[in-house]
């Protein structure tokens, strides 16, 4: 084997030994992580900085994902479709120093607020890779503050659509594109600053990859980038080989179609043969009228997430994983819609899809089964002005719930679930930045599914609207009892999500699952999110656990 000191030797057909591979492959991940630190810490959008709704990654020259920093699984592998769309549109006209921007959900992006900024990486004049960032901006225009609306019926109502265009040309920012953006959105200052932060992160990726190529030789680095994909593919195939062959199936429902329509069905049929997994999504509903459709990049991320969670949680994230998966997702389905479908709140559908796919996979391997988690991250977008600056400010807040119990422990209380991992915005941050007071943020005792192990608790959060009327969009899932998170192995379901509007005179009304409205000062919006499903029969719950539930007041459901 070669050794650390011999790395500088380069060859046309590089032999990369196990140690060099290990060193370079961890260096590639650490580049993506370092890009993430730069973006997170300098961003304006609270969705990026406090909720980690962004990704940073490196790609091969062909646009295959090589290394991604683990922030939010909802964006897993998504950017590679955007990079490929850029290559397709711009091939032959790509220069050193260019940066591309794209948020087009039918060209590889996920929904309009997730804006991709991607730069080609040239080493000694040769296009050798790409560095990319995707980040959820607070607002990209459209009908509603926050650029989301369940009731919207096409993509054009949702906001500004950016196909792959050049944010900068040969190192210089492109003023034409910047002007189009600033004149179409609500908070241009934050958005443009965050785009610059995204580009700075990409430039860092560019520099770091060039440093690696300088140290080890471009041929070695490129070879490791390609082999990184093979290693993940091999690991997934090995893990699949170790599992018994079999077939599984599961379905799940969304409360509606985004409007007042019927429930939307998500269905997955899976089979594992040898070292390959087959996933058939053709039983899912056709694309729907409201904004619940899942662009292909998002559905693909859901598959990567579920396969990783069930088969190989310790694996790195790259496109090698999908080589071991054969997928049937007919065009025109809610999981692979056609333009101009509305997609802005696709996240709800994605979460239900992740839940359904995990249940289908654990139908093949029951020992991996766990209770279901809430898929209803309640979301509340409110447009107002900042108490500090007086400038327009959009609050985009989300509330997690309970995760499913496992065969070994109770679920987690009050967290975001599955493909998402968004934190709780501190009340002190909300109240400082928006004209809203958080009256409560606490667990909902009794919301958990019961069993030998209980599901996690849902959260209750109350928002009081202060000072002046404010335009709000809020939405949730699992507000219908039959659709609440299910238990496993005999555990019971969690309680569904409830949204209550309390008017200034104290009148309480339950509101429908998804609403866009104007809220008067003194109004309180209360959400109580779903608890996770239980595991095993409740009769098998230990005496100590029962005593603890009792002592800690977790049994009552108010």
């Amino acid at each position: 084997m070669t050794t650390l000191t011999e790395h500088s030797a380069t060859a046309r057909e590089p032999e990369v030994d196990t140690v060099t591979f290990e060193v370079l492959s961890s260096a590639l991940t650490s580049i993506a992580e370092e890009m993430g630190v730069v973006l997170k810490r300098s961003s304006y959008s609270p969705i990026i900085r406090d909720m980690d709704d962004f990704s940073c990654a490196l790609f091969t020259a062909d646009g295959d994902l090589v290394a991604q920093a683990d922030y939010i699984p909802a964006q897993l592998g998504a950017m590679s479709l955007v990079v490929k769309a850029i290559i397709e549109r711009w091939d032959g006209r790509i220069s050193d120093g260019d940066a591309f921007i794209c948020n087009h959900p039918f060209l590889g992006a996920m929904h309009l607020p997730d804006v991709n900024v991607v730069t080609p990486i040239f080493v000694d004049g040769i296009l050798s890779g790409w560095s990319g960032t995707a980040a959820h901006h607070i607002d990209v225009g459209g009908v509603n503050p926050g650029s989301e609306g369940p009731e919207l019926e096409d993509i054009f109502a949702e906001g500004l659509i950016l196909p792959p265009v050049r944010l900068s040309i040969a190192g210089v920012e492109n003023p034409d594109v910047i002007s189009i953006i600033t004149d179409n959105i609500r908070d241009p200052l934050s958005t443009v600053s965050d785009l610059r932060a995204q580009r700075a992160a990409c430039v860092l990726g560019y520099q770091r990859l060039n440093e690696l190529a300088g140290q080890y030789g471009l041929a070695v680095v490129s070879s490791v980038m390609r082999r990184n994909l093979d290693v993940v593919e091999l690991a997934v195939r090995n893990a699949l080989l170790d599992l018994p062959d079999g077939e599984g199936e599961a379905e799940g429902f969304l409360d509606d179609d985004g409007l007042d329509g019927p429930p939307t069905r998500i269905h997955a049929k899976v089979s594992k043969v040898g070292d390959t997994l087959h996933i058939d999504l053709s039983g899912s509903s056709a694309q729907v009228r409201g904004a619940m459709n899942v662009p292909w990049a998002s559905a693909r991320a859901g598959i990567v997430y579920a396969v990783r969670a069930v088969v190989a949680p310790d694996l790195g994230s790259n496109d090698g994983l999908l080589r071991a998966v054969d997928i049937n997702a007919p065009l025109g389905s809610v999981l692979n819609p056609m333009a101009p479908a509305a997609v802005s709140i696709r996240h709800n559908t994605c979460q239900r899809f992740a839940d359904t796919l995990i249940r289908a996979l654990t139908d093949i391997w029951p020992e991996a089964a766990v209770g279901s988690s809430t898929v209803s991250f309640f979301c509340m977008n409110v447009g107002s002005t900042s108490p500090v600056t007086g400038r327009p400010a959009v609050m985009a807040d989300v509330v997690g719930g309970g995760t499913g119990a496992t065969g070994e422990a109770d679920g987690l209380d009050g967290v975001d679930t599955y493909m998402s991992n968004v934190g709780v915005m501190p009340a002190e941050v909300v109240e400082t930045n928006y004209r809203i007071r958080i009256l409560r943020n606490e667990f909902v005792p009794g919301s958990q599914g019961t069993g030998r192990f209980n599901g996690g608790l849902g959260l209750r959060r109350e928002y009081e609207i202060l000072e002046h009327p404010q335009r709000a969009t809020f939405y949730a899932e699992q507000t219908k009892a039959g659709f609440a998170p299910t238990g496993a192995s005999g555990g019971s379901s969690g309680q569904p999500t409830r949204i209550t509007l309390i008017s200034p005179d104290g009148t309480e009304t339950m509101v429908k699952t998804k609403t866009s409205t104007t809220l008067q000062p003194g109004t309180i919006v209360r959400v109580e999110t779903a608890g996770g499903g239980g595991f095993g029969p409740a009769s098998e719950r230990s005496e100590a656990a029962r005593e603890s539930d009792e002592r800690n007041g977790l049994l009552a459901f108010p």
Partner: protein
Amino acid sequence: MTSLAQWIVSIDAGGTFTDAIAHANDGRTLVTKTASTPDDPSRGLTNAVAELAAQGMDLDEVKLVCHGTTVATNATLTGNLARVALITTRGFRDVMAYRQGSRPQVYSLKPERPNELVERHARFEVNERIASNGSVVTALQQADIDAVLEKIEALAPEAIAVSLLFSYLNPVHEDMLLAALAQRFPHTPVTISSQVAREFREYPRTATTVINAALRPVVGDYLERAAGSLASGGVLAPFQVMQSNGGCVPAGRAAGQAHRLILSGPAGGVSGLLRGAAEHGLPNVISLDMGGTSVDVCLVRGSQAPYTSRQEVQDHTLIAPTVDIHTIGAGGGSIAWVDRTKRLRVGPQSAKAVPGPASYGRGGTAATLTDAHVVLGTLGSGALAGDLRLDYAAAEKAVRDIGDQLGMGVIEAAEAILAIAMAHMVRAVRKVSVERGLDPREFSLFPFGGAGPLHAGLLLRHLGLSSVVVPHQPGLYSADGLLAAGLRIDDSQTLLRPFGADALPPISGWLAERRDELVRQVIEDGAAPGSVQASVTVDCRYLGQGYELSVPLDGTSVQDLELIAERFHPLHRELYGHSSEQETVEIVTVRLAVTGGFDRVAQPARVAGTMGPADAAIVGRRTVHLPGTGERSTTIYDRTKLQPGNTLAGPAIIQQMDATTVMLAGQSGRVTANGDIIITEDN
């Protein structure tokens, strides 16, 4: 008859060993390394002092005792904490349980539940509200206070924590509760959040309050016992305890600051690093403290130790000014293994002290980094600390097993294990240097701890460092570093005000008032008045951003504060690659640190020594394999026989009781006046 020598003593009580060093003003230095006594660490302290006394230290003439302790660290790790009752604003009792609201293990369907520091039934609420501008929205009523006192009475907790919303702007309700609780429960410690962390974001502030309360009885009891056993042993000198911020606090005040002692141990190493760097005239240095299970790396630039205001402790976020130390799970005991894709991995699992590396002969069979060194010949079979002898055959068997899985010979496998462990160390050093835009070639590295110096030559070469400085007693370096530290008090206040002329006078007023108070306190704590210094940093961001950068200022005056914006922009550009000079800068939190030096009666001795090759210290030769240099016959030196001024040519191995140093071919070493060895590349 001259007067008796005066002594200063440092005691670093770690998990395995309690190290102690005593310096006298007549030039004598005494050292001892005794087994720690985890059941009651104060006995370890007594034992160490008794051992120093047996070596000739006059207990009556001890003038200062500095102590690094892992009591707070271990209490949090093992959950040996006080039962705490928590009082929060109505609607927020569960804040300690939902924390930041995110999951640490995103891909696991079977995640571990986070540590719960206060059970739900011990979390109480009061009906009160302060607004985001500090005004009272709902006043706290006496009836509410009475009701919560009743519930706490029934619970009989060992400590009480109070954390209300926006208390960093207006502590009036926390103060009311503190007064009522102190009166009703005079023997129970009460911590209010506005006393330990006047900073925004309710979760980390509450966590800090709860961890402080949970540690106070544990740390307080320990320090009381430790002070008592020192006194009964005849030592009546001031007893100072190292904090995570790299400065000491008198033991009598330390319990109130218990959450600030969690890095008490490693902070001693950093203070040693600062002194070592100053002695060698090196402004830019990196420490690499490697023991059995982990490596602590700290980068000092321009003679300034790096600080962070946050710390992660057992699933919780703590607001505490802390020396910024990057820790990775790689040590001498790190286990080598082959994963499913036939890749060789090293760590993060460690064989720890028990069963230990295979070569320790204590029952361990897994190949560790230490075993790779035994196979390669860098670690010879000889006496190590703690009467340990290394078993070559056991190491060879363990490493050969790894080689068999990879189709490699035993030497090749040992080289591969070392190369991968080196990659971890290199990555850790790059993390604190390259990833912060700093070039390691401008830094010197201080490797210490039991396993650090083994990699001295390799680190020098792979990182392209300007030099490596191996301390005189690498295994006792953290203890020795304690004596280099002074006193330190930190304070902070969240303000959240846009930068502008109107904002500055009140901030300046607050800073000046707090500075005067802290200066008075640090002198009362034992600082020599002439040595007291205050430093001010302001955490800033562009208005609308979510994270802050610390901008250092030169003082507390309005003129000093006026420089905030012009210092912030270039800092932002340097770290993040972009800045916007026309944007408004927001002042988020102001921070004050007051330091003072001890009146030291003694300093470590310096010896003139002998110039020239260190032939007198040669004790033998043996064959050593190293990655990249192959098999070589290597000179073995006895560190105790090296004299200041001696020079050594690599390849060389320098053995001493507490560590082994390895130099590569093409490297030279020079012993300095304080006994350190500086290693550089020849070309």
